[in-house]
């Protein structure tokens, strides 16, 4: 992933977040989708936020892996 991403100082947070989302989707749309589905958990204040987030990521990655395995079998 090239480090060409930049936030725009003139745009509000929402638009910059969308800009980030677009950038990451260009790099890897499936991983970007997983990230943004679980981002709220990661940025929450809880002491286990990282572990909870990674648990969600693991579940999502396993689902993608199983779908790929099923797809290759049919």
């Amino acid at each position, binding site marked *: 992933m090239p480090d060409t991403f930049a*936030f725009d100082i003139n745009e509000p947070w929402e638009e910059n977040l969308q800009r980030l989302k677009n950038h990451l989707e260009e790099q890897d749309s499936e991983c970007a989708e997983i990230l943004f589905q679980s981002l709220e958990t990661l940025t929450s204040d809880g002491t286990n936020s990282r572990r909870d987030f*990674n648990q969600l990521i693991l579940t999502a990655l*396993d689902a993608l*892996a199983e779908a790929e395995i099923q797809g290759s079998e049919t």
Partner: protein
Amino acid sequence: MTRYYLSRLDIEGFRGINNEGDPLSIKFKPECVNSVYAQNGIGKTSIHEAICYAIFGGLPKLDALQRQEQPETYYINRFHSQQTGTITLEFSSDDATPNIEITVTRNNSGQRIVSSSTGYADPDGFLNSLAADFTLIDYSTFSDFINAKPLERGRAFSSLIGLTRFASIRQALERASDTRSLNSDLQITAIKTQIETAEQRIRNARLAAYQAYEEVIGTTIQDLDDESLRISEVTTALASVAPLTETFTGKDILSIDADVARSAIIDAEGGDKKAQYTKTIADIDALENCAISAESNAETTSLLGAARNRDAAVNLVGSLALRDLYSSAKTIIETPEWSDPNLCPVCDEVAAKPLAEHLEACLETYQEANTLSDALKTLLLSSTWFLSAEKLEASTLLAFTDETKHCQHIKTLANQNTLSEGRLREAIDAITLFENRRYEKLTEVKALQVRLQSELPPSLVTLTQKLEAGIRFGTTVKELRTAKAEFTKLSVHHAWRERWRSFIANASSAIGTAERALSTQRIAQIQTDYQAIFTDLMRGGIDMRPQLVRAANSENVDLNLENFYGENGVSARAVLSESYRNAVAASIFLAAAATQTGAARFVVLDDITSSFDGGHQFALMELLRTKLQCPANPNGLQFIVLSHDSLLEKYFDRINSESGWYHQKLQGAAPTGKVYANQQDALRLRTLAHSHLSSGQIDVGAPLVRQYLEFQLSQIISKVRIPVPPDYAIKSDNKTVGNALDVIKNALQLHLQAGMLVLDQQQQTDFNNRHVPAIIANYVSHYETGSGTPITAHVLLGILQSIDDLVECFKYDDTQNPPQRKWYRSLSQR
């Protein structure tokens, strides 16, 4: 982009504001600095909290309470009979876009409901768009900013310059991309071990299949790429021998019944020796199949290493029984029945602070031990050593007794995260002895086989050997297929996890770079402005300039002073007084706020000047009014200043008559009664006082009478422009009425002696001889001196009338028909 001012705020039943059936309503002017003053306990903080709850969805102060303190029960005013908190905000746009009114309700179930009476489609989304770091600022934000360490300041600075969410996502992704955490949380190390095990199974099965094929067919093969062909060749070779032909009818080597095939040979050739010989072949297969290979044995080194690491982590934090104790203690003190959060349920000692946080921290230290225990469990249960050991212990030929076996027990211990290095080593030693026993038994059976082979006809021996080899071929092909499928599955899972690791690491790097660049840009963007604001605030002080410096590779932000008595790069934290420190923070914040472009075009400042002396307070307010507030600044913001500072309140009162300022004062009886903003609600305040007094509630009505009197006296001073002495603002609050009356009386006397007094004779007489004496004698002397007989409701009702009559002394009928009462322009002019 359309931006919005806050133009009205209504509150009922929230925090200190009860106002049941009659919400506190405060209007704010977009083109003015809006100041709201309240004495302590009247409800100023509740205004701040209501805006905070409406926009940010929670109150940090309550969220920080312990669970057993039931923070959720403190949102709604405890005296509101409906137990419903309602906050209505009206926003006016800075263009022609219609106003938006949004109501946020919190019911007694803690549910937050957002709606828009003006039909805005996404009211929740709109409130979210206002949740900028600038929207609500209080004193602690400033004071913490200077005193913080560079990293903390860097994070606080992100908030000040509106980049909290950028910094937050950067920090979050840094946490998520940590290699060690990923290995542990996503079980990457474990899945790698499982893949290695599957690869080993494939290698073993493949080699066994090659060997079995060679024994049946007589030629060697190097691969099983054409698996069907090899199966067919083995099947054909065995099916072509007469005793086996029928057994193979319609079947191949994978699907035949091995026992039926063996019986077929025995039936054809007959004899116990043949059966015994066949058994030796099967036994040798079975014994070789449960061997502990040298490769598997080598795994015990890494297993013992993992157990050692786990033991070290457990020893570091104490016994797991202690963890269970902490966990139980935490469960107990978090139950609603546990009345004292500081009381330890184990030792009955009372701690200095609530125990829940301490216990949480203790439990957190076990996480490392848990992680390493999990790693050991995964490593053990997926190791070929363990799988082989289980097979070895299960061997019916070796017939180990249950008491001598270890695998089931260490598996249980591993699942319970209690498998120690010592216990594992004991098991490994025992399995080594079993392996020796297996080897001896194998040697024994092989010797028997050689003897029987010499005693049986060669053709029968060969056929039996070939059949057993064929059966082995079939079994290993099936094992190969299973292992390959497992390998493929694990590899796909592993590939996704590695893909994620790469993605999140790159995302973290990209966001880190972008966030640093943005922060540096924002610092550069506001540097000139915050230095100029600081100079304005500190006018008369030394000519130094604060300067923020963002570190290249971290979130650290240093705050230095340039030209500090000729020196540069001096730490602001080290040399500045509290007032100066907060002035630096205020300068930086205001400069940053001025650059914001989000939906919120308003800033609520809650008691930010607490550490300022009077001069600096006024300088800050003047700065807001003349340079930062719109429309004085075309791109400026709407400022809403909440204060309980009585000195500042006098200033607000004075400046209220000037353009660009709109001042209101809260009056009332929080949290049980009603609170009003008196600028609009003086009449309501009077009505309320009258109502309470009429029903005999003197304790509630008396403070309202005082507030009404203070308000009307300040109105007289303001409306007829009576000059006040320099020390007027800083005299005791207790003597506000006496001070105001003195000021008015002196001004009247001065104008009278100069022959310029505009009040008619009757008004002068009424003021001096009727109303003022009535108010002082019957009321003021009581609360200013704390002496005298108790005041009755009847007397206070009379005071209300005297106050109204006193105000009339400063008004006249104009020339309209019918005439209207107007304030004199001054004491010498209509």
